[in-house]
C-alpha cells in the first residue's frame, strides 16, 4: 500500500496521469476524460445500459476479437512470406517448427471466424433494439461498411495459407466478380494482378489483408465509436418496444 502510494504520488506518475487515484467521482470521470484511448467512452453511462441484455457486449466483443486478430496477425507476419510455394511451407513450419506456432495460427483463424459471426450478431442486436433510429442512422451506415470490411479481411486472409482450400475458395469467389456488368473482368484483374489466382494475387491479398484493410477498419472503428458517444451513448435496448 505504501509502495503504491509512493508510485502513484511520484512526480513521474503524476506527469503521466494527472488526476489523483483517490476513489472520488471526480477522479473516476477524469480517468476516462483524460485518457486518449478511454475517452472514446463517455464519462458516465446509464446503469440500464450496463445490463447484459442491453448490448450483449457484442460491439465490445467485435472490437476485442479485432484486437486479438491484430496482435496474433502481427506475430504471424514474422513467420510468413507471401510467395509461392514458401507461403504453404510456412504453414507447415508453423505447425512443426515454430514453438506454439499452431496455437498462434489457431487463435488467428478462430478469432477471424468468430469476428464475422459476432459482427453480424451485433448488427442484429442493433436492429432488433431499433438502435439505428435517428440520430444513429449514419452510424448504422458506418457499421455496414465495417461489416463489409470484416468480410473482406476474412476473405483476403483465407488465401494466405496457399493450400487447396484457400486457392479454390478464392478462385470461386473471384469468379463471381466476373458477373459484374462491364467492369467485372477488370475488377477481377485488378484484384488478382492477372487472369488467374497466382503469385501476384497472393501478394495483393497479402497487402490488402495485412496493411490496407486493417488500417481502414481501425479508422472505421474509431469513427464508429466516436459516433456512438456523439449520438448520445448507446441506445441499448431502450428503443425496443416493451409490452
Amino acid at each position, binding site marked *: 500500500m505504501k509502495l503504491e502510494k509512493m508510485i502513484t504520488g511520484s512526480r513521474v506518475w503524476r506527469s503521466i496521469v494527472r488526476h489523483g487515484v483517490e476513489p472520488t467521482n471526480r477522479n473516476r470521470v477524469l480517468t476516462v476524460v483524460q485518457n486518449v484511448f478511454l475517452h472514446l467512452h463517455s464519462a458516465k453511462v446509464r*446503469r440500464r445500459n450496463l445490463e447484459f441484455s442491453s448490448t450483449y457486449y457484442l460491439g465490445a466483443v467485435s472490437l476485442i*476479437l479485432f484486437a486479438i486478430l491484430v496482435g496474433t496477425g502481427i506475430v504471424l507476419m514474422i513467420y510468413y512470406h507471401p510467395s509461392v510455394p514458401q507461403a504453404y511451407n510456412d504453414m507447415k513450419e508453423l505447425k512443426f517448427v515454430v514453438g506454439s506456432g499452431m496455437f498462434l495460427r489457431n487463435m488467428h483463424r478462430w478469432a477471424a471466424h468468430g469476428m464475422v459471426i459476432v459482427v453480424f450478431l451485433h448488427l442484429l442486436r442493433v436492429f432488433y433494439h*431499433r438502435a439505428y433510429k435517428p440520430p444513429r442512422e449514419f452510424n448504422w451506415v458506418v457499421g455496414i461498411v465495417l461489416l463489409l470490411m470484416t468480410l473482406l479481411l476474412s476473405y483476403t486472409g483465407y488465401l494466405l495459407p496457399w493450400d487447396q482450400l484457400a486457392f479454390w475458395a478464392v478462385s470461386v469467389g473471384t469468379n463471381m466478380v466476373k458477373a459484374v456488368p462491364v467492369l467485372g473482368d477488370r475488377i477481377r484483374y485488378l484484384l488478382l494482378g492477372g487472369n488467374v489466382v497466382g503469385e501476384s494475387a497472393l501478394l495483393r491479398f497479402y497487402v490488402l489483408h495485412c496493411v490496407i484493410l486493417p488500417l481502414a477498419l481501425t479508422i472505421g472503428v474509431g469513427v464508429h465509436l466516436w459516433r456512438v458517444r456523439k449520438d448520445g451513448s448507446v441506445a441499448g435496448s431502450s428503443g425496443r418496444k416493451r409490452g
Partner: protein
Amino acid sequence: MRKEPSSSQELRKSDDARGMPRRIALVRREAPAQLLEDRSELVTTAPHLLLREVIVFQICVIVLAIVSILFDAPLEGIADPEHTPNPAKAPWYFLGLQELLHYFPPIVAGVLIPGLVVLAIGVMPYFRVNWESTGLYEQPWKKTIALVSGIVAVSVVIFVIFHTWVVLVPTLVIYGLMILPGLPFCPARLRGVLGRVHLADWIMTWFVIVAILLTLTGVFFRGPGWSFVWPWQGGTQ
C-alpha cells in the same frame, strides 16, 4: 459591423462572446418525450463499464485459447491449379451466395441480390416506417398486408420457376405467421403476440432465416457438382 437577420422569421443570434446562450428544449418527432423520460441512473464509466469490458476481454481470450487448443486450423495439400476439388466451395460466409448461384444466373445471384441486400440494409434507417414503435396490427394494416401479399405472390412464382425450395418454404412459413393475426380464426393470445411484431422485424427475420438456411445448405448439404448430399455422405471428390 453586425449582420442583421435578413428576415424577421430567422432566429436572432447573439454574437456577444460573453453572453450565455439561452437553453430551449427541442423535442423532435424521432425522439418522443416518452423516450426521453426513459432514463435511468448515471454511473461513472470507470470503473463500472471498464471492469465489465476487462471481464469480457478475459472471457474472449480464454474461450479462444480453449478452442485453439482443441481444434486445429485446417490445412490441405499445397494449392494446385490443375486439380479442381469437386465441389469447390467459397468460405462459409459466402456459401449462401454460392448456393444462390446454383439457382439464378450469376448476374442475379452474384451481383444484383447481394448489391440490393446491402443497399436495402444500408438505407433502412432513413425511412420513417422503420422508426415506428407500433406493431403491424396496432395500426391500419389492410393496405400493408395487401402490398406484402402481392410481393410474396410474385416471389413465390419466381422461386417455383427456379426451384428455390430453400427460400420458398421459409418465405411461406413467415408469411403465414405474418397474416395469421388478420385471420378470423386466429386465437386471441396468438394475435396479441404476433400482432405486436413490427413490419421491419418481419422482413429482417425473414432475411436472416433465409440467409442462414442458404448458408447451412451450402456448407452441409452440397456435394460433387453441387448436388444434394447428406452431411454424413462425405465431402469432396
